[in-house]
């Protein structure tokens, strides 16, 4: 096992105790990135010089006695987060050459904790997608089977962490964009409660749903990243001003005393025999760890996808208006300002982004607003209410993280089948709840060459991140599914 395969916790410990320098870890990571990037394509921009400069500063801070929780930990930053002086594209042609003039709060907090930004990771354009295939700027492959997608939209961050091109990934989850790629890439993908982590500097897709979170190879690493990023930010009015309980130091050993809800409407039998068997085994493992399994009902969760595909496009139609060629980003000249707008946006946005802008613009139009947007908001309230009732009967909810393992490129070519990928993750996003995916086994998809990872989703009540991470840690420690296989990297090394 190479050093860069160590956990973020181990690397930070080694750098803090000066067993390794951040510079050494960074150099090793950059060398590895160079050797595998051609096959994986996790990054849109590798920040080699800047990473080395950050690492040097971390080493200096360590020498000055600072106890940095993420000292020298290589991190992949999803390319929809601003990092001062770095190209920040959102996977879109419209921002292909845009250099961010400031740093996102969550990124700044990771750097403050000692993390070293290795690069800006690929993603579906403006985080719209579930496979990374909607990126206009590059192809990212699943390190466990390079013919398959890494998931999305945070697919670049997930692939980077899975391929050891970073120890931690920063992702953003709007309807499942951290949890689904986490499941596809054998990672812990964690979306905290809406409002826990500042969105300042996260280029908005759907403001009321977007939430930054970590992708990590272990629950402990995810907890370390969460602890570094979480907390009120005066620059984001939607962050919650309440204390964050440090999660990393409070990871549980078992699940005794916890009631885990099985969602009646999310019967895994619908996912086929192989996945059904994996999920049933996972639920038994939870029980074996001391949890009491109880059945709960989320009767309106089935409307999650429909609700989401009104609210998220409505917000994105407005959020993406600013990409008009006037002040920054791509500009395609026209005869007048109107035609400049039209040409710029026609050339700059890809088909999925355009589709959602059109859907959202329509949903907000006079005469349709009540029928679409207002009804969707009402449905959203009902869905949140379902979770509230369910959490009166249980402490956590367990369910699938995705309806299938990572699929081959081009397999979900019609938008609706792609939208259904987030069937199990969207309801939690609509309710603002903390949820994560944790590896729960392997299955060889039909026609597949090798087994692919499968993720179990755990969801907790609002602000119960500590409980959620603790339970996931107990499950991970007892099962060790993530360690069963390694990514296919030896054959691709440049």
């Amino acid at each position: 096992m190479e050093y860069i395969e160590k956990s973020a916790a181990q690397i930070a410990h080694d750098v803090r105790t000066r067993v390794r320098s951040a510079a050494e870890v960074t150099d090793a990571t950059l060398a590895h990135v160079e050797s595998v990037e051609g096959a994986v394509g996790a990054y849109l921009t590798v920040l080699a010089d800047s990473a080395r400069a950050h690492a040097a500063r971390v080493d200096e801070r360590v020498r000055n006695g600072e106890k940095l929780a993420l000292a020298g930990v290589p991190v992949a930053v999803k390319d929809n987060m601003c990092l001062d002086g770095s190209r920040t594209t959102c996977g879109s042609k419209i921002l292909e050459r845009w250099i961010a003039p400031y740093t996102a709060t969550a990124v700044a907090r990771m750097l403050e904790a000692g993390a070293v930004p290795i690069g800006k990771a690929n993603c579906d354009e403006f985080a719209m997608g579930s496979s990374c295939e909607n990126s206009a700027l590059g192809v990212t492959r699943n390190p466990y089977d390079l013919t398959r997608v890494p998931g999305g939209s945070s697919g670049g961050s997930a692939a980077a962490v899975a391929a050891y091109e970073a120890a931690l990934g920063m992702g953003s989850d709007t309807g499942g964009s951290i949890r689904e790629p986490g499941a596809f890439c054998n990672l812990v993908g964690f979306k905290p409660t809406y409002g826990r982590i500042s969105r300042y500097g996260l280029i908005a897709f759907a403001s009321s749903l977007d939430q930054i979170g970590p992708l990590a190879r272990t629950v402990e690493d995810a907890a370390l990243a969460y602890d570094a990023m979480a907390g009120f930010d005066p620059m984001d009015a939607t962050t919650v001003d309440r204390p964050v309980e440090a999660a990393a130091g409070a990871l549980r050993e078992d699940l005794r005393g916890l009631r885990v809800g099985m969602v009646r409407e999310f019967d895994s039998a619908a996912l086929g025999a192989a996945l059904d068997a994996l999920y049933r085994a996972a639920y038994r493992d939870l029980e074996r760890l001391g949890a009491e399994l109880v059945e709960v009902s989320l009767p309106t969760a089935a409307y999650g996808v429909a609700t989401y595909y009104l609210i998220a496009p409505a917000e994105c139609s407005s959020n993406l208006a600013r990409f008009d060629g006037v002040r920054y980003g791509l500009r395609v000249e026209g005869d007048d300002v109107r035609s400049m707008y039209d040409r710029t946006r026609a050339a700059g946005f890809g088909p999925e982004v355009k589709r959602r802008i059109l859907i959202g613009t329509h949903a907000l139009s006079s005469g349709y607003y009540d029928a679409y947007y207002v009804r969707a908001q009402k449905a959203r309230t009902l869905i949140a209410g379902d979770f509230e009732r369910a959490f009166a009967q249980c402490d956590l909810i367990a369910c699938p993280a995705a309806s299938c393992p990572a699929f081959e490129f081009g397999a979900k070519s019609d938008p609706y089948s792609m939208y259904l990928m987030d069937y199990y993750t969207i309801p939690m996003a609509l309710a603002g709840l903390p949820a994560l995916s944790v590896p729960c086994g392997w299955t060889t998809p039909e026609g597949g060459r090798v087994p692919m990872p499968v993720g179990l989703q755990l969801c907790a009540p609002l602000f119960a991140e500590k409980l959620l991470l603790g339970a996931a840690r107990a499950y991970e420690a007892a099962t060790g599914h993530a360690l069963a296989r390694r990514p296919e990297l030896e054959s691709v090394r440049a």
Partner: protein
Amino acid sequence: MNARYEAVIGVECHVELKTKTKMFCGCVNAFGGEPNTKICPVCLGMPGALPVPNAQAIELIIAAGLAFGAEIPAFSKFDRKNYFYPDMPKDYQISQYDMPLAIGGTVKYWLEDGTMRECRLTRIHLEEDTGKSTHAGSGDGRIAGSSYSLVDFNRAGVPLMECVSEPELRSGAEAVAYLESLRRTLLALGVSDVKMEEGSLRCDANVSIRPAGSAELGTKTEIKNMNSFRSVERAIESERARQIEILSNGGRIVQETRGWDEVNGVTHSMRSKEEAHDYRYFPEPDLVPLEPSRAAVERLRAALPVLPAQRFERYTSQLGIGSKQATQLVETPSLGAYFDRVVACSNNAQQASNFVLGDLSRLANETGVAVAESAVSAEHLAELIGLVDAKRINSKIAKELLARMWDGAGSPAAIVEREGLAQTTDPGAIAAFVEEVLSAHPSVVAEFKAGKSNVMGFLVGQVMKASRGKADPALVNELVRTKLSS
């Protein structure tokens, strides 16, 4: 004006708030400056930037609402108004749609003759201002036909109050009187500088016409581009005349936006209702709802200053001051407050008004020091008025004293005492001065007796001079006349 028709007018104002910083970021809120120097990622609408509301701006809006007696709902929110425009950084404006900070209320205003009127408000809400475009190459400064445009974002994100009146105004003069009262009130509250010339007050008017006495509303037009109160009045009157002309000839009014052409004194069509935007308002997801606490609202209510309309009513109806002077007194909040303090220790409000608006305002103009900040305390001015009323000094001495008080001489009573400036009202003493002057000017006396009665003034002046200004002028007049006629 055609008596068969009456105009129905509503006014919509945009007022830039006088806050330290912009509405949703920490950039300084100040007029002017080098273009694009008061900007940051937030007010530039950079990708990823988020708004954080300015608490001071919210308080100013609530204070304005309370001053006009509006309801301050317990729940309010921001919404996005979506439309593309190059000087609007996000291509949406954060505004308030269906749940404004203040609902209803009434603006009390008065006409030139002092008649009090009222106009109800529909609502007051808070939003952000846009940047400013300069279009080059089109000749007329308009975007159509221009070769390039420059945008200055210094103003982008400045907090803006939108204040919408009910259509209860009936003439251009009423609209201007309403605007004057609105302006004075916002100035008194410290909400805004309310300067039309700097764009911190901008207004549009909705105008329609109906048969006098009818309860139904006619089709309205919206008038824009009015850059002064004078142009508001002219534009409304011009539009009223235009609409009456059309209706009288059996035509129909088209609902549209019309621009005021200051040079030619007419309105012209800008865009029709069909071209109106669908703004696709929806709740701003980057901000949480505004829920002003009752305690905070009551604190703001308790801190409200005396309002100009209250002052004006008290001055005219209780103190008997004329409309013109009362208007001047309420014009500057600090001047009105000063006047109130003078009146509190004097029982001659008219005299107080005369001094404040006359000699004191003249001194203020000459020296550049505001009356309320001058060395003349309200108590000392009241003392001076008391001396005049008691005929202890005459008005000439009073003027001189005031000038010295302005320079810091202090109590006028003390000066009169110290320098023996008290008015001479003893007929015997004055008669002696008269005697002295008449014998010194026998030729003038002869002229008078020959019928040149206008030399009387000269003689009175000589007597006043002989008394070093202290003689009671009325008594001097009387004694000179008696002596000459004897």
